[in-house]
């Protein structure tokens, strides 16, 4: 099966031929499969934002290609516009983009731009509101009356209402309280499951990303430094640290233990996994390791 997104040798240079010239991405190749949950990590300025803005055609590659379902997204203008709807991009602090009189109308902005019928728009808005946990009562309010968390949900619903095959989120939980974080992540999960959509999520919280993602892609200095399961990636804690990234708390604890001479596999990132690895050691001594 063709991957939903295939990036081939993508290079992007900002302000070429000026004193401000800056290469944000150099020779990045990456594939995203259908239904996959990819975590994108990397320190500030590593090229994550530039990369995700290429996936829905907001930025044009300086060189290289982006294929959607096997077709180059820059092949013709009509297709590029279609891509905006098939690859939904939720920016950082997306609540800044709310502008309509009611939440309903704001969520309907994307579907309306797609040229759907009023009935279809209505169904999609309601479905998106469902996915993001917004009450129907909220839909008739002005988006500016909502609380911070609800604004975030409304903004995410605005992208989800286009029912994209790929949903990209740039730090969707930044600045939210812990319960808000958990429930938004839950919403994203349920959208992914219901639509069999691929999700690409940028996050700075290693705990968050480790438990959600099927695969982690680590960006460093404008190229892909690592790509693999959270297990595989976090077992390279040393390299991550050199890139200015942390590993989850639990992994750190296990690494310290290893440092102290306990022979334990440090690639666990939840308390349960850590317990699984440590308990046998406590019971049976070092025999297990």
């Amino acid at each position, binding site marked *: 099966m063709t991957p939903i997104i295939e990036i081939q040798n993508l290079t992007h240079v900002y*302000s070429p031929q000026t004193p401000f010239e800056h290469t944000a991405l150099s020779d990045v190749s990456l594939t995203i499969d259908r239904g996959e949950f990819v975590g994108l990590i990397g320190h500030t300025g590593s090229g994550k934002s530039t990369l995700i*803005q290429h996936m*829905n055609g*907001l930025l044009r590659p300086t060189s290289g290609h982006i294929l959607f379902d096997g077709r180059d997204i820059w092949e013709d203008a009509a297709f590029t*516009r279609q891509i*905006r*709807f098939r690859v*939904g*991009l939720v*920016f950082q602090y*997306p609540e*800044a*983009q*709310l*502008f309509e009189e009611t939440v309903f109308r704001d969520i309907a*902005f*994307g579907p309306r*731009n*797609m040229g759907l019928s009023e009935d279809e728009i209505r169904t999609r808005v309601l479905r998106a509101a469902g996915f993001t946990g917004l009450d129907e009562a909220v839909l008739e309010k002005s988006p*500016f009356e909502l609380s911070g968390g609800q604004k975030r949900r409304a903004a995410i619903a*605005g*992208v989800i209402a*286009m029912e994209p095959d790929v949903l990209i989120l740039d730090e969707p939980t930044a600045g939210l309280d812990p319960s808000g974080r958990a429930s938004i992540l839950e919403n994203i999960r349920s959208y992914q499951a219901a639509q069999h959509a691929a999700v690409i999520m940028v996050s700075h919280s290693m705990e968050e990303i480790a438990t959600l993602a099927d695969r982690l892609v680590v960006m460093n200095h404008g190229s892909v430094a690592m790509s693999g399961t959270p297990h595989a990636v976090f077992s390279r804690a040393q390299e991550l640290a050199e890139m200015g990234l942390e590993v989850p708390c639990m992994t750190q604890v296990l690494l310290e233990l290893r440092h102290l001479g306990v022979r334990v596999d440090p690639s666990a990132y939840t308390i349960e996994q850590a317990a699984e690895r440590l308990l046998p050691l406590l019971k049976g001594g070092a025999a297990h390791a």
Partner: protein
Amino acid sequence: MLKDVTLGQFFPGNTPIHRLDPRTKLLFVVAYITALFLAKWFVSYGVVLAFLLTVIALSRISPKVIARSVKPLLFIILLTAFLNLFYTPGEPILQVWIFRVSKEGIVSAVLMMLRITMLVVGTFMLTYTTSPIALTDGLESLLSPLKRLHFPVHELSMMMCIALRFIPTLIEETDKIMAAQKARGADFESGNLIRRAKALIPILVPLFITAFRRADELATAMEARCYHGGDGRTKMNVLRFHRCDGAAAVVGMALLTAVIVLRRFGL
């Protein structure tokens, strides 16, 4: 991209022009503009132009930057030239349909173009070589006699300073919001004028809201640091005139006098 706009930008440097006191530069620009408007014929324009070119050379601002800054105003400059060309009464030398070109028209079109370009470039030289803070400081100091008349001089200059400070921030904000709405399929490039104007609503509403929120936050942050307006406020960098300011004043006066004298002779 919006980011490439150079209007009102400051290019740091350490040239004699950069080092001048902002007050001197402000007064200088006033003298320069007066001279430009008093200039009557090519000789006076030549004097003013020679002076402007000297300032540009001294400031080491690249001609490319200056050319780029004039570009957005090209339309206005050409329109003025066009109107002068056809609507100046005088001895006709060329007539096409209802358009009549006179010798006086050609002369006044050329002079008008020179005047506007020099006016724009001259004032840009001020903002290119003076940081916004120095500029507003200078303005405050120059306007301070108006305080006697209860004119809020400090408040005005603070407002100017803040406005200048937030231009790049707002441009960045606009870029971000545009990208976010484009991601939802907003289309800013096609359709007629009315459709395009309507397409701006999804950008303008969020932009205004963030601007107001920012203003609110800034006001709170200023109050938290006990800002209470200009009364009894002292400056960290007190403006002082130096020897080169005196020299600049002499040059400015000379320029103005020269143009006035030349005007007498119809040059």
